[in-house]
């Protein structure tokens, strides 16, 4: 009896204490949850307000003429940003054609082939990181001296070249990290089946981390699509549509900058419109690329 009572007592005491403790814990837990939520909101506020502001100010400028025609005379508020949209697509496309293969292959080397020369790989990684940190205007000046002055004209090729230099370290870094995530057992299994190394790398490692690699490419593309400084030094900007690989072209960030620095309200509205177009373009590009990569890799994994 007594014994039983005692155990009951202990039980109730423990329960009491636990209840007391758990109340504290619950309060603390709720408090922290709310706090974290608040910080998430604070982190989202700038992004949301930027999107809201750009949308509110820019949506009025959008029209068929705005998207497809060249700019009108200075200060007239007529015309559009056709050449800028076209220029951005071509320059970023060409930059990706140069930057993506080089970046991905550099990542493949660092992840798969560098085990035999560790110190070389170490310096490669170091310089890659340094390259990521170089201000884009410096890369722009390099492009101006190396390409614009030697070729004799501002050109789309010079622009694509400097943008690809900004892309390469980002893509290489992300690719290397993603390739490292592929389980070693997969590689071993492939070797066990008698595949040569290049086939293992191509069919198993790269295909398996396709969504990660494409994330890296999307990151790099959206980074360079918004670059202004290196483009001032290389493609100069123009009011004309693309007219050859060795003449100046326009780009959206350049056009936004030019429109924003004009003292006319019509130009400012067009600038907001151009900013909205640039954001939508990058958004569409990243969503499309991501869906493309994911759909394909899930299909692969089911076979």
């Amino acid at each position, binding site marked *: 009896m007594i014994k039983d009572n005692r155990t009951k007592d202990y039980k109730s005491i423990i329960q009491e204490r636990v209840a007391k403790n758990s109340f504290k814990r619950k309060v603390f837990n709720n408090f922290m949850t709310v706090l974290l939520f608040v910080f998430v909101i604070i982190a989202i506020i700038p992004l949301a307000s930027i999107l809201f502001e750009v949308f509110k100010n820019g949506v009025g400028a959008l029209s068929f003429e705005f998207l497809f025609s060249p700019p009108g005379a200075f200060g007239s508020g007529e015309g559009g940003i056709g050449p800028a949209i076209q220029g951005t697509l071509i320059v970023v496309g060409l930059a990706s054609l140069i930057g993506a293969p080089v970046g991905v292959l550099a990542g493949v080397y660092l992840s798969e082939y560098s085990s035999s020369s560790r110190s070389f790989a170490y310096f490669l990684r170091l310089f890659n990181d340094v390259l990521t940190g170089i201000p884009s205007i410096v890369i722009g000046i390099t492009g101006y001296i190396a390409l614009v002055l030697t070729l*004799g004209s501002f050109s789309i090729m010079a622009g694509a070249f400097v943008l690809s230099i900004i892309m390469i370290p980002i893509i290489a870094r992300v690719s290397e990290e993603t390739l490292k995530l592929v389980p070693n057992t997969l590689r071993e299994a492939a070797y066990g089946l008698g595949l040569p190394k290049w086939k293992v790398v191509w069919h198993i490692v790269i295909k398996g981390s396709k969504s990660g690699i494409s994330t890296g490419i999307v990151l790099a593309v959206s980074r360079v699509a918004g670059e202004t400084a290196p483009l001032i030094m290389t493609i100069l900007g123009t009011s004309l549509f*693309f007219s050859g690989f060795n003449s100046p072209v326009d780009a959206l960030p350049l056009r936004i900058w030019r429109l924003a620095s004009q003292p006319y309200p019509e130009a400012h509205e067009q600038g907001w419109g151009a900013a909205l177009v640039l954001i939508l373009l990058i958004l569409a590009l990243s969503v499309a690329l991501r869906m493309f990569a994911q759909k394909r890799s899930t299909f692969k994994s089911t076979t």
Partner: protein
Amino acid sequence: MNKLINYRILGISLLAVSLLVPVYVNSVHAQKVSINGAGATFPFPLIDTWRTEYQKVNPDVNLNYASIGSGGGIKQFTEKTVDFGASDAPLSETEFQKAGSAVHIPETLGSVVLAYNIPEVTTPLKLTGPVIADIFLGKITKWDDPKIKELNPDVTLPSENIVTVHRSDGSGTTYVFTDYLSKVSPEWNQTVGKGKSVQWPVGIGAPGNEGVAASIQGTPNTIGYVELAYALTTQMNFAAVQNQEGNFITPSVNSTMAAVSAETSTLPSGSESWSNVTITDPPGPDSYPISSFSYLLLYKDLSTNPTIDEQKAKAITEFVEWAVTDGQQFAESLGYVPLPQSVVDVNEATLKSLTFNGNPILTN
């Protein structure tokens, strides 16, 4: 399997479209000649109007002009990265020597106005050269300074600090403005001097005429210097400036024209050095004191720039000829002064002397 093929087709067609669009546009433009120029922001509203108007006259020629400032224009012209440069400051002796055989083609005339933004003041202010110099030297710091009050007895000026706005880039407008201040203020001449970019004692910098205009508009109690066209199109207030004869002149097309006719009798020929040409602080009772030519820069033999071929050389020369003759009709409505006949004659002679590989370009 179908899905995979679908995505492949989608990917390939996207790639094909992105490659074909430029090819298509390229073929549409294949017969066209693009003329690339860069330089002064001072005549940009006029040159940009020429771009759209010349399309109607000659649809096969595209004009492309980037307003990067006169300093940039001279640099890109000398580096031969553009087909023509534009500058409101003539090439200095050293720049002229470095360029080799450059010709100056004055393509328009404009005036530099003192634009200000004082919310309380709506009537035009009157200023004299020495007072402007003192403001930009930082010696006059308040809008209600006795020196300004004395010139404007009827205006109630606020007791606010004056913020001066100047150009942050190499600028022909700066050259014209400092050239004027050097003539009217000995102290300015000694401490700051004239040039496309100078050491400003006070004030904030902004890029291009556009940037200065936008800064003045956006900041109360500012004063800065911009080309007349920028002040007119943005409806800014600007000051009447006292000229040599003591009259306060409001900048306008007519008062600039008066200044020009007082000074254009002794112009050099196109291929000579223009470094001493200046029309600031001219004589004449109605002359506005701060005005300037703006120049297009070309090489005497256009083949000096290896990216110019014979077809392009012809297109450039024809465009410039159109600009200095028929193109002048667009000047006045934008606040620029149409070139006087004497200057057009100088230009015609210059254009006739231009060559490509030694052969004259204009045959008639």
